[in-house]
């Protein structure tokens, strides 16, 4: 075929795809259409109009006659198969009673695919490139206090704004539905915190939350949840012009509706919960994340049956070293399971307090946001390489970074880092370093100790660069650890 002719045909087909996206899929749920009493003239589609503007006639149409658009021709021009149109025209009757595995109800079990028929580049659409598929279900799991919900808000923010998440591109921007069954009072402030801290989103965000949901183990749970989610998805489209892309359920254990002891260890119950999650995701054509707790032993993963993690497309593990007092250090997010890349990739983060202004009684309010400063580039887990003599410097540097650090890019072609003024680090280091003698001797000893430490740490642990007259310093731990 002449390349230009091919262009025309392809253009018309694509035009149809762009203009009638919903009708392109045979498995979409459709509204019943009123039956026509006789044959009615069918309006030409946008695709057909495009073809006409090229001065061509439609397939099967006489160039001199500009009526009589057959349904088949419309479908062909719009890139839809006749089968798809049949599905469109089929009235929706009463749906059969369904249990928890509705996920496969809308699929075509007997459909056979042949090599070459499916373009592999289009066969794996992502919500977050290489991490989270467009449609699927997964878990965000961790012990209490490991910032599971905060990380869910972080992901939600990226999905709403299109900003990369953990350095991975957002491939489908859209709205988020949050089912807050635990700590629902925290939702507004946490959401506002992340939005104000990151910026970009102005005005209302495409985010909705509800505080109740039918039990996942109940009959027709997925149907009930979809009934709640569908109007919200429509509202996203009408109000913001975006689709629903992410549903987050906080938490799975609260949503499950267990009725007896030990049911969370029951493989069948676990599978039923995951099937509900899967069904919701497939019906709403989005990704559904359940937030879940780890058991007492972190190594064994999510609490209860292992079926849950087995069924999930993605498992994000929120890890950290917890002390008896409840303090959590060395916090990190691990891509514990994903289908499109290597598992086990860790991204460390710190939680930073952000001031949210006064409340209704004039009392100051605050919340936390996550800083992925040292982990924007994927990196494997690594060991500690700060020697004993450098521990004070590290401690001081991390404190100053937390209190006075700012995100910047010291090298134009380098990654963004969280950096602070070296002078502040020196002042605090000198205050904490023990020294004897008179004031002059003490100052000399401390300055020498500081520059010794800085020089040693510059060997792959910290970076220093003067930017706009300020000596900035930052942690470059990942590279240092990788090289060791």
């Amino acid at each position, binding site marked *: 075929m002449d390349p230009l002719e091919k262009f025309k045909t392809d253009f018309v087909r694509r035009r149809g*795809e*762009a203009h009638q*996206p919903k009708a392109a899929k045979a498995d979409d749920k459709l509204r019943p259409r009123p039956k026509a009493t006789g044959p009615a003239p069918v309006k030409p589609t946008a695709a057909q109009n495009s073809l006409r503007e090229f001065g061509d006639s439609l397939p099967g149409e006489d160039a001199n006659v500009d009526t009589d658009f057959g349904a088949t021709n419309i479908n062909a021009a719009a890139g839809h198969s006749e089968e798809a149109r049949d599905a469109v025209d089929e009235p929706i009757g009463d749906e059969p009673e369904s249990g928890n595995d509705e996920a496969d109800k809308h699929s075509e079990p007997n459909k056979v695919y042949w090599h070459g028929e499916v373009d592999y580049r289009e066969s794996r659409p992502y919500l977050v490139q290489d991490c989270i598929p467009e449609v699927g279900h997964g878990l965000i799991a961790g012990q209490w206090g490991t910032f599971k919900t905060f990380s869910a808000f972080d992901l939600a923010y990226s999905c709403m704004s299109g900003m990369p998440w953990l350095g991975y591109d957002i491939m489908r921007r859209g709205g988020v539905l949050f089912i807050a069954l635990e700590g629902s009072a925290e939702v507004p402030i946490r959401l506002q915190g992340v939005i104000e801290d990151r910026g970009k989103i102005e005005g209302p965000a495409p985010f909705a939350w509800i505080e109740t949901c039918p039990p996942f183990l109940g009959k027709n749970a997925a149907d009930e949840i979809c009934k709640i989610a569908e109007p919200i998805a429509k509202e996203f489209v009408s109000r913001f012009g975006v689709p629903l892309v992410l549903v987050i359920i906080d938490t799975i254990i609260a949503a499950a509706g267990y009725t007896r002891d030990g049911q969370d260890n029951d493989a069948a119950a676990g599978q039923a919960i995951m099937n509900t999650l899967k069904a919701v995701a497939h019906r709403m054509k989005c990704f559904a994340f359940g937030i879940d707790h780890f058991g007492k032993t972190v190594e064994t993963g999510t609490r209860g049956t292992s079926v849950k993690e087995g069924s999930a497309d993605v498992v994000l593990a929120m890890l950290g070293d917890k002390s008896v007092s409840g303090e959590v250090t060395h916090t990190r997010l691990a891509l514990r399971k994903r289908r499109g890349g290597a598992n086990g990739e860790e991204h460390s983060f710190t939680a930073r307090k952000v001031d949210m202004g006064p409340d209704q009684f004039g009392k100051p309010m605050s919340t936390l946001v996550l800083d992925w400063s040292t982990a924007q580039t994927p990196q494997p887990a690594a060991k500690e390489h700060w020697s004993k003599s450098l521990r004070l410097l590290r401690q001081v540097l991390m404190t100053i970074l937390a209190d006075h650090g700012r995100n910047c890019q010291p090298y134009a072609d380098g990654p963004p880092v969280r950096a602070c003024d070296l002078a502040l680090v020196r002042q605090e280091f000198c205050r904490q370093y023990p020294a004897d003698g008179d004031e002059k001797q003490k100052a000399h000893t401390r300055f020498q100790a500081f520059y010794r430490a800085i020089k040693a740490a510059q060997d792959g642990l910290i970076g220093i660069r003067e930017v706009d007259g300020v000596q900035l310093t930052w942690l470059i731990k990942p590279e240092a650890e990788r090289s060791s």
Partner: protein
Amino acid sequence: MNAITPIKATPACDLLTQAVALVRPQLERSKPLKERVEIYWAAIAAANSLAAVDIVREEFLRLARETHLADDLRRTADLYHSDKTLEHVLRWGLLRRNPFR
């Protein structure tokens, strides 16, 4: 009358230029912006194989500027409709992915 009519050489024109010329009238400002963006994306996706990606990108960026599509988008697109901004539509068009789903 001169019996020999000089033959007018047809101007050299590559496929991409021809494709752009075909699409250009469809992007006129009298049409709704949404429709113009859809046409623009469909044309990019269809013209993908007519030249190297960077050339296609450059030509279609120029087309958007010349047909004032870029200006109109910038003027009317708020945050959430900025999904359909030029860069996004271009990128998705070159990837042959549908941004309107």
